[in-house]
């Protein structure tokens, strides 16, 4: 069976002539879900989201309904909603399309979520480079206010909520939810230590705060539009709705493909939808869900047991596109930003490229992350410039093993995982790269560092 797309989040924005204007959104059924939501009790809205089985789309895949339940309601402090539109994980470019082409879809989800958690103030933290995206959102918010979908006394419910767009400053770690909160408070984006700083208890201004990804907000709109039970029927049990696969790198047709969870495989995505490898090339590896997820190699076999007990034995091409199956293969669905690598690529250069990214982005608070990321970057780079030794290959692994699990935020894992997954799979090739340079043999044409 050939893979088919099932656009829900991207359904409207792909239509010819679809615009960001409120009128256009209203013509496509806009804000009907919000009307439904404010006619319900906030707890009922939370219940619908829980029933839907929706998982967050920011990378960690945490169940959204459960997250909302953790919100501290006893303290009596105001609750805040913070929408994470920082989109900074390399390989990820899905939220951009929603912001630039269908902002009201996200804003409707924000209004619904704010009602559900009774937040009177919401913030959209958008990455600084999206200057125009921020303006599009501000304009859309003003339009929504003019029609009483936001602002004072929303749709006559007596409930009010303001939304403010806040631009970041080009910093990856501000996508991490507690770094984001610090940044929103006007400070350096240093992630906070958990416990005690779980955002749902001690978030923005030390008040209970829900941080959700931009696409998660768009998904919430559809949960309400369809109802939780109907939404849960899309995809598979444990992973409902659609995933947007943002494929980049060396395929014929890179692009964004929205697929029902679990209803296609990596093989179908990469061959049917993306058209397979470039002329005369062969696929070598993929990084499945943004640069921080662990690399998968073509030719590997993946064997094990799914959470529901089913045993599997897959080639990379057979892995179904849902979070449980992908996690069972030792990596993660992450943000769905799949980076494709083919046989023209020298793997040590690909690793060195990513190591340079993490070394640039570490905030420097934790010694293992700060020193480890720089060290990894230098060691891998020295291999690419001809100064490497065979012992550098196990050294890379050794350094990475000392970073993961020993830091304040998950940037530490993001530093370690590419190395920890790639070294065992490609060490022979790394050694070959060292030898080739020692012997002065010609290097691949494609430079990545």
């Amino acid at each position: 069976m050939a893979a088919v797309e099932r656009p829900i989040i991207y359904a409207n924005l792909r239509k010819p002539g679809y615009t960001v204007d409120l009128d256009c959104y209203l013509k496509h059924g806009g804000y009907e879900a919000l009307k439904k939501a404010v006619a319900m009790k906030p707890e009922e809205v939370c219940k619908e989201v829980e029933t839907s089985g929706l998982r967050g789309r920011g990378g960690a895949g945490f169940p959204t309904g459960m997250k909302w339940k953790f919100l501290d309601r006893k303290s009596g402090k105001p609750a805040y909603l913070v929408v994470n539109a920082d989109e900074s994980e390399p390989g990820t470019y899905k939220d951009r399309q929603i912001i630039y082409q269908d902002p009201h879809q996200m804003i409707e989800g924000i209004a619904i979520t704010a009602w559900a958690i009774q937040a009177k103030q919401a913030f959209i933290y958008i990455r600084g480079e999206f200057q125009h995206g921020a303006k599009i959102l501000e304009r859309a918010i003003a339009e929504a206010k003019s029609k009483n979908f936001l602002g004072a006394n929303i749709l006559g419910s007596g409930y009010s909520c303001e939304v403010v767009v806040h631009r970041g400053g080009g910093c990856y770690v501000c996508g991490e939810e507690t770094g984001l909160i610090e940044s929103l408070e006007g400070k350096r984006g240093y992630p906070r230590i958990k416990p005690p700083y779980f955002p749902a208890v001690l978030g923005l201004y030390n008040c209970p705060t829900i941080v959700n990804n931009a696409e998660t907000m768009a998904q919430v709109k559809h949960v309400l539009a369809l109802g939780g039970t109907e939404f849960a029927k899309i995809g598979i049990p444990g992973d409902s709705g659609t995933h947007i696969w943002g494929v980049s790198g060396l395929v014929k047709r890179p692009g964004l493909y929205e697929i029902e969870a679990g209803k296609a495989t990596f093989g179908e995505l990469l061959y049917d939808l993306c058209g397979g490898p470039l002329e005369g090339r062969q696929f070598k590896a993929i990084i499945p869900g943004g640069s921080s997820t662990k690399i998968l190699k073509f030719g590997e076999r993946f064997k094990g047991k799914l959470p529901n007990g089913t045993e599997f034995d897959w080639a990379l091409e057979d892995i179904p596109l849902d979070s449980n199956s992908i996690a069972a293969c030792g990596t993660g669905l992450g943000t769905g930003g799949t980076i494709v690598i083919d046989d023209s690529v020298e793997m040590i250069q690909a690793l060195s490229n990513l190591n340079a990214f993490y070394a640039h982005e570490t905030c420097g608070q934790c010694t293992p992350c700060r020193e480890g990321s720089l060290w990894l970057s230098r060691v891998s780079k020295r291999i690419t410039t001809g100064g490497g030794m065979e012992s550098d290959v196990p050294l890379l692994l050794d350094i990475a093993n000392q970073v993961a699990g020993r830091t304040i935020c998950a940037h530490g894992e993001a530093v370690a995982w590419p190395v920890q997954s790639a070294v065992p799979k490609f060490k022979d090739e790394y050694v070959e790269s060292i030898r080739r340079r020692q012997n002065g043999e010609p290097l691949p044409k494609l430079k990545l560092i």
Partner: protein
Amino acid sequence: MTPLQPSTLAQADVIIRQYPQKRSATMPLLHLVQEDRGHITPEDMAWVAEKVGVTPMQVLEVVTFYPMFRQHAIGRRHVKVCRTLSCALRGSYELMESLEKALQCPRGSTSPDGNFTLEFVECIADCGCGPVVQVDHTLHENVTPASAENFVQKIRASLQDPNYGKTAPQPNTPEWKG
């Protein structure tokens, strides 16, 4: 030093009022200043500090943490080439080498005529269209080493355009996506 424009000063108070705590307005005010002046001076930081009720040092801490804030003037066009993996796989390193030659500007510097500042930046969330180059607020997609010459002509031509950066972006144009 030229003073900030009246519109900048007026906007500042509107921005501060949006936040439950004034300090949250630090970054928006810094963006505002940088868009007005092109960079951020110590005097600007002192002004922001007073506006949001912190010390100038606390503003400096913010300025030095975020790569988008700068304390020095740059060229008339800020050319930012994405170097992260998806774009690199599509040729951004080779592209950078040809841009360095064409603009007579090594990466990380400003050309002697002051027209261009050329930099490598990390992923700007348009990975399926790599290599991508953001010039000021405008995003250019699929700038391959082969199309580099064409791209350079375009940004050189923009130096002569009196309306550069003044018109509102139109949907599905490079400006719109930036």
